[in-house]
């Protein structure tokens, strides 16, 4: 296999993102997959996007528009 390169966007590793680590993944054209150089994650674009939805679980109020900021 040839050396890896960058995909069309700078997808970060979803697994590392969940531990507050921003790591761009590299893209292997022969296998059409992104892989992480730090952890063991690998997956195609579809899988990355799915996992990116998953990492949002922590943002329980992401869709909420707040109008009150105290508890008075």
């Amino acid at each position, binding site marked *: 296999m040839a050396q890896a390169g960058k995909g069309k966007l700078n997808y970060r590793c979803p697994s590392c993102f969940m531990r507050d680590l*921003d790591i761009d993944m590299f893209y292997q054209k022969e296998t059409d997959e992104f892989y992480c150089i*730090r952890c063991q994650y690998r997956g195609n674009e579809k899988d990355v996007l799915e996992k990116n939805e998953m990492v949002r679980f922590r943002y329980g109020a992401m869709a909420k528009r707040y*109008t009150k900021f105290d508890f008075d």
Partner: protein
Amino acid sequence: MDKFIVNIIHRPEMVPEYAEKVTGHGKEEDIGRKALLTESLDIFKFQQEMAHKYGLKTTIQMTYASLFNEEAVQIAKEHHEKYGDEIALSLLGLPCTEFREKYKTKDFCIWMFSMEDKKSIVDDVFGKFYDIFGFYPESTGSYYMDADLINYVKEAYPSVKCAVATCWEEGPKAYHTCNNSWYTFMDGGPWNPWIPSKQNSHAPAANEAEDSGIVAIPHLSRDLLACYDGNGSNFGTHPQNVLRGMIYDTETWDYPYLYNLIDQYRDLEKYNNGYAYNMMFVGPGWLNKMGRWEAPYELLAKSYEDGMKYYGELKEQGKLTDMTMAEFADYYRQKKTYTEPECALWRDILYGSDKQLFWYCDPYMRACVNMDQGGAIVDLRPYAAKLEWPVGIGTKHVTDASYPFLIQEKYRAGYFTHYAGEGTVRSAKLKYNGEEVDLCLCRTKAHFSQEGNTRVLTLDPVDIEFYDLTVKLQSVISFEEGSSDIKIERRILEMSNPEAQVEINEYMVACYGTTEYSEDMTGITLSAKKGEEVQSLSYEYKCRDIEMAGADEVRAIVPQIETAVSMRSNAETAVGYVKEGYAFSPMFTLGYTAQVKDKEVIATWLKLEKAN
């Protein structure tokens, strides 16, 4: 005097941070590439256009590189004439062919150069600015400006009155997020504008003698809960940071969080005599045509326009005043006294936890009170020490510009420790018949009030349930302006057995440092004092303690950060104590135990002082 002010800042950066690394991957480094220069200028133009489209004025911070670019200079002059934008000068964006040739380094963060280079660079950049515009700027900035740098700029270029001077809580957390490749640390500063002292730019000036002569503003307005726990670069008034945090709906491209963040900052006027502030400063690298992280350019551009649009709408409704940095400095000087604190009662607006924090900052301390831990103090920076802490090459702190803490619950544990030992926190424990309950486990909410010169946090009462006794307790935390004291009152509102007597242990576990790793505690002095009687010990990791009935005060002197911290109590039965730590748990503890009965109120004060 209800006022919400925004500073919008743009910089024509000819070699945007990130852009070279990201878009240039697989090419040899060439910071003079024509395509890079053209794209950078286009981004700057787009940002300016968006601000003006929504009726907002900006501060144009010229970079050194942009001073060599006629078009960038021309745009700045035109927009100053037409829109009232301020032409200012940034110390960011140094890299360009001219700079590299002269300084022969890839360093680009002004605060990390040697003092000699700092002066020389400032002179080059300010001199070039003067050559081009015929005047010296009133505003400048970088991600961090150390005290020596600010003092030099003010001395050599007295026209400067405003500077971007810190990124809130960009320390070890940002370092980790960047895979430990980001060697710059600047935790422990104010989150909103302040007047930096001459000694340490994080610590606000207490008086005219300490006044550095400028008004400092933070780089971005950051989420005071999310950034404290997580990566600072995901949670600020920077639309692309919100995208970086993946805090948007991938189907609809909606990001209510950005508006919640702006609105919560607006809401802070309640705690600051009717004044609130926001800062948006997006570097061109974030609006990369190639997209950024998972976000395509279209989403990057949309989010920037939406940010400007929201500020524009608020302005139209009379709810926002847009100012240039220099205008803001004048406004701030006129409305602010040295000792007036900055206060923020902040709620979680992202995770849905309803957690609540209170941040307090004045010339003597920065403190964070956590209502989710019964009002425990979970972060404490002793500004009273006005620690001189030179940073950059040739100093003891090349990369670490953080103001040291005494308490930091994320780096040095808080209430919970994993196996043994104790974490840093200021809380209290109640003891009855062999059972013990820490207030850190009593989740509650606070209400803010101001009584004269004192800011008061009144917490909702909590119930402490022992096997056969329930105690209803209320904590009231007061910060008296200029006192360098935090007063914590415990009110016993009710006991299920009115005859019962409970022991209350008011304690503070502390250490010192700027990172997660322990520093040498040797030489810290712990003492208890009653009248003329003083007992003390010098820290040697020997797990010793001192107890003194009726102690006037218990005290720790931490010579490493020139800080003295002490506690005193008004309880008649109070017994003061100090505890030395040990190697596995290198902390010290100050505290008082006292017996309390139904309807009693006791108070404990924590004081910070400079120790030479």
